[in-house]
């Protein structure tokens, strides 16, 4: 059997343990790894000849720590007895503590990235040497999946590098380079990669000390020395407030991390490790961690690997892309495409407009170069791939055309027809419409099977999600190639069927409408906005509406009215649109909307808002408002599922979080429903419906699920 850790002992009695998990591209914690390490530690401790141990990796990455799928499995046993869960969680800590106290000096020779449990393993060694490679990342990112470093990270890191830098790394979860790590004292030596093992060995032979600093007599952890002084208590006080400011009490992990540090650093390390394992147990049993891991990692990972791609279409790549319209969206798409190595023809009605679109990329390139994130040559090459033009003939030889012209059927139809004249036979035409149904737009196409929707979000270079829309006539090849392109530009796709507003525009609309409805009910504007942020949304509904533009909503509403005729039903908050548009308060671009945008100063709510929408004497609790803002999101997602626009829960959740910034701690609107309980959620919506209107009435799909005791996720 192939071992998870290979071993060798040299003539100087130095053992080298090389981690190399079989059948895995990356080293992760597995039960076999732990079992093997256990045996090796026992052997090393008992050896009378061994002088020291070097731990390194046989793969490019040193060790990535816990396997997320294994964690997911563990979480499904959440209902398990808490004492048993704690025993499981404490296992890694006990093992690494045995390594640390085995009596032989141990060096971690970090040949590659060590994140999470990988870095924690290195911290349990007595010395750390890292290869001098800026691509190597060292960090404890557990907080990002709703967990804490549960293999000693919260205890060893502050004892090693001090309170403040440790809290930063632990609470933010970002990785740092070897040289930054050296500055912080996180590692002892940074050496050229080829000298890694010899440097490790040199330490063992010359200085090798098998006792960790915290096991030496008289060691004081940062809190033990500073609790009566101002420093530790000031740091902790500030850290608590900053976490509260950032997380709005929605994320248990950073709070648990702070507590591990606060409580654990006042006691000996063995007690501290016990405390850490207990807080880890609370997190692994939390719905937040389970939901975040499922949506943000497992399901997003599947989407990134194009789980929805029709398998029978051969893989494709876009070499040349045509972009119609060099406005905000068009220029953003041009940038991300050129950044992925694609030749881009950026077409607009006049050349200055097209040039201006390219200018957007130039701005981003200059920023990236000045920050050292891109070399000047790379930047030049990127810009060289974007060709501004007014001539449709330049579209010859494109693999894909994306139309991002004005949101008007006639304009779009004209652009489609002109492009298709030049486009190669097999190429795909995509519309970046945000609201107009694809099926209707495809009527302007001479080859509707090759017509698909690719809906980007603004700003394109920052937003990680793309909504791919399948029209009635869209063929599987068009879908597959659209998805291949999304992967090529390194974004995450979701696939939805056609419908007014597809998935995300309508869900976003529901959130904004709820804010407007609250305004009409007389809820104080500040309360509405704080409720949105406290619910976990990036901005309140009114601020969001200012960003997307109030007049745009107005025009969409008017268009919908025209399209639907008698079937049109006004939304509960519509009156606000009329008032704001009448006042010319269109949002941020007009420098006035629900907010005022002073030239030099922070935006603030427009004082006139409360005159137009008087504040009621009795104000609702913020908890009710938060619930409404989250629940309308979920209800609209469920209705989209009922309408067959959305075909599976995972994409509904991924879309909401990565497309709209929907409260990540929930795992998405449908995970939220599961967490509340489908029946409980339906009952709550029914009650909300009686009070606030039909938009809360539980859809049939939800009622049926509740009756049958079904959930969105197994």
């Amino acid at each position, binding site marked *: 059997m192939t071992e998870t850790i290979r071993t060798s002992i040299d003539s100087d009695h130095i053992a080298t343990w090389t981690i190399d998990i079989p059948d895995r591209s990356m080293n992760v914690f597995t039960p076999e790894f732990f079992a093997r390490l256990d045996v090796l530690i026992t052997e090393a401790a008992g050896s009378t000849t061994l002088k020291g141990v070097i731990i390194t990796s046989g793969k490019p990455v040193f060790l990535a720590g816990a396997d997320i799928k294994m964690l997911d499995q563990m979480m499904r046993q959440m209902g398990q007895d808490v004492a048993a869960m704690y025993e499981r969680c404490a296992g890694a800590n006990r093992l690494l503590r045995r390594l640390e106290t085995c009596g032989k000096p141990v060096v971690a020779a970090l040949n590659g990235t060590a994140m999470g449990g990988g870095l924690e393993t290195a911290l349990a060694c007595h010395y750390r040497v890292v290869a001098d490679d800026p691509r190597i990342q060292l960090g404890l990112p557990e907080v990002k999946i709703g967990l804490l470093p549960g293999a000693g990270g919260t205890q060893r890191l502050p004892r090693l590098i001090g309170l403040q830098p440790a809290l930063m790394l632990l609470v933010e979860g970002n990785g740092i380079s070897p040289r930054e790590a050296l500055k912080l004292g996180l590692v002892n030596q940074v050496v050229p990669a080829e000298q890694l093992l010899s440097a490790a060995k040199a330490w063992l032979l010359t200085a090798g000390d098998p006792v960790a600093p915290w096991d030496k007599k008289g060691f004081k952890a940062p809190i033990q020395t500073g*609790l*009566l002084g*101002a420093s*530790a*208590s000031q740091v*902790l*006080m*500030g*850290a*608590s*407030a*900053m*976490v*509260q*400011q*950032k997380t*709005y*009490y929605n994320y248990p992990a950073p*709070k648990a991390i*702070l*507590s591990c540090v*606060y*409580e654990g650093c006042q006691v000996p390390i063995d007690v501290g490790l016990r405390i850490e394992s207990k807080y880890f147990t609370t997190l692994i049993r939390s719905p937040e961690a389970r939901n975040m891991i499922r949506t943000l990692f497992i399901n997003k990972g599947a989407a990134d690997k194009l789980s929805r791609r029709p398998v029978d279409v051969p893989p494709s790549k876009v070499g040349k892309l045509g972009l119609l319209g060099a406005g905000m969206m068009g220029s953003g798409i041009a940038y991300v495409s050129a950044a992925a190595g694609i030749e881009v023809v950026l077409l607009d009605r006049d050349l200055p407009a097209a040039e201006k679109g390219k200018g957007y990329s130039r701005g981003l390139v200059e920023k990236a170069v000045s920050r050292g994130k891109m070399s000047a040559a790379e930047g030049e090459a990127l810009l060289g791939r974007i060709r501004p033009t007014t001539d449709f003939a330049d579209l010859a030889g494109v693999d894909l055309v994306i139309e991002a012209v004005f949101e008007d059927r006639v304009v779009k139809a004209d652009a489609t027809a002109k492009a298709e004249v030049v486009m190669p036979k097999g190429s795909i035409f995509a519309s970046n419409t945000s609201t107009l149904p694809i099926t209707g737009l495809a009527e302007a196409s001479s080859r509707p099977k090759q017509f698909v929707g690719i809906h980007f979000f603004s700003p394109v270079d920052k937003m990680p999600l793309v909504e791919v829309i399948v029209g009635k006539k869209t063929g599987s090849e068009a879908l597959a190639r659209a998805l291949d392109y999304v992967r090529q530009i390194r974004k995450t796709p979701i696939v939805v069927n056609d419908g007014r507003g597809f998935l995300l525009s309508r869900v976003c609309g529901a959130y904004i409408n709820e804010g407007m409805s609250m305004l009409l009910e007389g809820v*104080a*504007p*500040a*309360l509405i*906005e*704080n*409720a949105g942020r*406290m619910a976990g949304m990036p901005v309140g509904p009114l601020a969001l509406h200012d960003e997307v533009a109030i007049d745009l909503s107005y025009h969409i509403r008017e268009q919908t009215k025209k399209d639907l005729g008698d079937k049109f039903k006004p939304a509960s908050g519509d009156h606000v649109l009329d008032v704001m548009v009448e006042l010319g308060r269109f949002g941020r671009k007009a420098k006035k909307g629900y907010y005022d945008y002073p030239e030099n100063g922070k935006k*603030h*709510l427009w004082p006139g808002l409360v005159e137009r929408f008087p504040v009621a004497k009795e*104000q609702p609790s*913020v908890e009710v408002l938060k619930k409404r803002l989250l629940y309308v999101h979920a209800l609209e997602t469920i209705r989209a599922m009922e309408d067959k626009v959305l075909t599976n829960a995972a994409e509904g959740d991924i879309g909401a979080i990565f497309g709209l910034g929907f409260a990540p701690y929930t795992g998405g609107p449908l995970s939220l429903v599961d967490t509340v309980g489908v029946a409980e959620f339906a009952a709550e919506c029914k009650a909300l419906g009686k009070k606030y209107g039909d938009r809360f009435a539980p859809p049939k799909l939800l009622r049926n699920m509740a009756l049958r005791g079904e959930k969105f996720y197994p």
Partner: protein
Amino acid sequence: MPDAFIFDHVRTPRGRGKSNGSLHEITPVQLITQVLVALRDRNELDTSFVDDVVLGCGAPVGEQGSDIARFAVLEAGYAETVTGKQLDRFCGSGLEAVNTAAAQVMAGQAELTIGGGVEAMSRVPLGGAGGAWFTDPQLAFHTHFIPQGISADLMATLYGHSRTDVDRYAVESQRRAAFAWANGHFARSVVPVKDVIGLPVLERDEFLRPDTTLESLAALEPSFVEMGEKFGFDSVAMQRYPQVERINHVHHAGNSSGIVDGAGAVLVGNQRIAKKLNLKPRARIVAFATYGTDPTIMLTGPSYASQKALKRARMNVADIDLFELNEAFAVVVLRYMEVLSVPHDKVNVNGGAIAMGHPIGATGAIILGILVDELERRNLATGLATLCIGGGMGIATIIERV
């Protein structure tokens, strides 16, 4: 229930709570010792009759730690039989100490007690005691902890007190304090603090800035902007009070209580001991109360504690002739007057901590003493002393001249 009477009160002048303050060279034990000595000497007190000395202290650590009361008693040369007890109810400590001393008398378990407090803020800094509230993340999160200055600004934001409102109040506090000193209103109770060679180092409060004007205050930057915005405390406050769009930071060094060194004590006993030792009862302690409120806004406790004490005394706000409310921050007094509909000419008539300073553990005893003196000077009958307290508490004591 035996009545508890106030026989006398002595306090030190308040020195700037910095290394350039006149009392900085005086140890906290010395500060309170000189108060106890004065209290004994001017009453020709046979200290063997004193049952207990209770002292408040807001930072009971270091040289203020380990029951400073017992050692001040010994240092002052009181009879060895006199016990000492130290207590900490933050800013309410001094009044709590008097109430506790009185409670022993009222309960019939003591005849003669002393309640007071001491705080040498130049030597043992505010917050020097550490504490779980702001360091333990579980607690900080659970209670929406924010520093007191942000609480004061939150109050001003919620109740609509502008920067001008609080500054105007501060100017008036300075004016009243200067007037009171100039006219000898404090002469009866303030005893000079002496150094080791017996010379006085401070005879008058030295924190006052009688030349303060609205204009001079307007030039000061608000103190809690950075803490609020950079460290996230504004956000914590707003998450507790989500109707607030942003915190209006109005408080600064000029309209908040001053950091000073000082000590004070009140001699309390029953009728029998008064006769026996020929002590003259000056006021009766009618009732006292404490009250807990939301810890985030923290500073609204005084009105609740006052109403609770009034109810216990079967009195109304209108029955009180004079109020002493500790000027922790200007807004605390403005809000109190608003809630209880008390006119400003009944409140802090000799100024307060904005002008003279707030030696945390001592202030409660000091303002109670000021109240007794002023009721006598004006020949009025009833008074109420009250303070806001960290952690969201209030304390109040009602007295009546006899």
